[in-house]
């Protein structure tokens, strides 16, 4: 008697665990011109970097919310399905409403995962802005701090030149990062590599993020 290992069949219906990330991008009028062009190229670099990793491409889910006005440019989609569409800049900076939208989307997405028996990693929100909120942002900031405190989300903010870093530091418990020039491509490659690490992690893993020194400063 022996065991025929070639007869062992795998459950191919099991979904990959998901690693959701909402990009919260300021597309207000002041981002017009070179900044929005660089941002769009950054998104291309982001997508290319994610699909270079077999697991990340199936596990990282991207959603994009732009503000100026608040708009869901892209609902959650796995990296392998994502095609960056060029963003245009216009309007003011309703950052508070945009943050609330991102947090609502994450809550909804978690419900979808639970209903479908999909396991998931802690969601990320990655916000990029070159200004200051033009709407009420205090309530959104409270929600961010609470969600961070309960480990419901990891919230990162990046200020492009001209951003009000003081307000950004009041929104999340994590210090805002300052983008060096318009190094969006480097920033998004860093983000991709960080999300790739998360998407490969197994129980008990603590994720140590690489230094953002290539593109930003604290």
């Amino acid at each position, binding site marked *: 008697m022996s065991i025929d290992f070639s007869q*062992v*069949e795998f459950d191919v219906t099991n979904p990959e665990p998901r690693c959701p990330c909402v990009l919260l991008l300021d597309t207000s009028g002041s981002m017009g011109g070179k900044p929005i062009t660089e941002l769009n190229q950054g998104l291309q670099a982001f997508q290319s970097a994610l699909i270079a990793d077999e*697991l990340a491409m199936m596990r990282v889910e991207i959603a994009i919310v732009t503000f100026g006005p608040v708009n869901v440019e892209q609902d959650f989609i796995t990296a392998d399905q994502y095609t960056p569409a060029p963003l245009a800049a216009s309007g003011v900076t309703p950052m508070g409403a945009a943050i609330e939208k991102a947090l609502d989307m994450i809550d909804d997405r978690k419900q979808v995962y639970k209903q479908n028996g999909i396991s998931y990693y802690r969601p990320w929100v990655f916000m990029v802005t070159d200004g200051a909120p033009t709407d009420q942002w205090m309530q959104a900031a409270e929600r961010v701090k609470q969600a961070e405190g309960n480990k419901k989300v990891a919230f990162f903010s990046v200020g492009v030149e001209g951003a009000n870093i003081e307000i950004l530091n009041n929104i999340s418990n994590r210090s805002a990062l300052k983008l060096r020039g318009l190094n969006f491509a480097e920033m998004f490659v860093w983000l991709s590599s960080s999300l790739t690490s998360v998407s490969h992690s197994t*129980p*008990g*893993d603590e*994720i140590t993020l690489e230094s953002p020194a290539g593109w930003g400063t604290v």
Partner: protein
Amino acid sequence: MWQAIGASVKGTSHVRTGKPCQDYHNYIVTPNYVIVAAADGLGSAAQSEIGAEVAVRTALSTLQDDVRLYQPLIEDSWQRIVREAFGAARDAIDGRAVANEVAIRDYGTTLMLAVITHDRLVVGHLGDGAVVAQFDDGRVETITAPKQGEYANEVTPLTAKDWESALEVTMQNDNAKAVAVLTDGLQNLSINTATGNPHAPFFAPFFNGVTQGVIDTISTSTQLADFLASERVCAKTDDDKTLVVVGEFA
């Protein structure tokens, strides 16, 4: 007669990063009972392969002493001795951490224990991984499912403060013909994540193999290790993986 095979194999992600295999397992087969222990050292813990090995060795020897001394046992004592084996494993890790002057979390590990007799199956389970059994009537069931936190990379290890409340101990008063203990590296291949039920075609070749006649357990364990390291398996999982299969044949 009982027979058992088992293997723990390093995942491709550990091969890439130069980490050791942080899974560990061992088992004891006697005419009257089988005890299996398997542990998955946490990737975040600096020397979790030590934690996994100390947990398995300690739990196994503690359980064997208890089973030898107390058999046959009333239901309550089964649950108690399995809990005590986890306690002994935790104490041993604690002791090792103190002796080596490292933080106990550096030895972070999960632990699964299964005691199989002719009329009982007792399982203690802390962390992820799964224990699956086939009973006399042919049904294949998940006895203990992975215990994860909200997130896919969260688990309560034996080294956590609240390990006792996270420990699940279950007992089936039934004759398990075959039992499989697996760590989380094999979870997605063998357990349906939506229902928690075993994927029967994964287990069938193993369960048939160990219940339908005598096998050479040493060479079959080597073949199992080769299978776990095969491209077919590694395309689906990059983590360390352990599988122990126990069966009773007439």
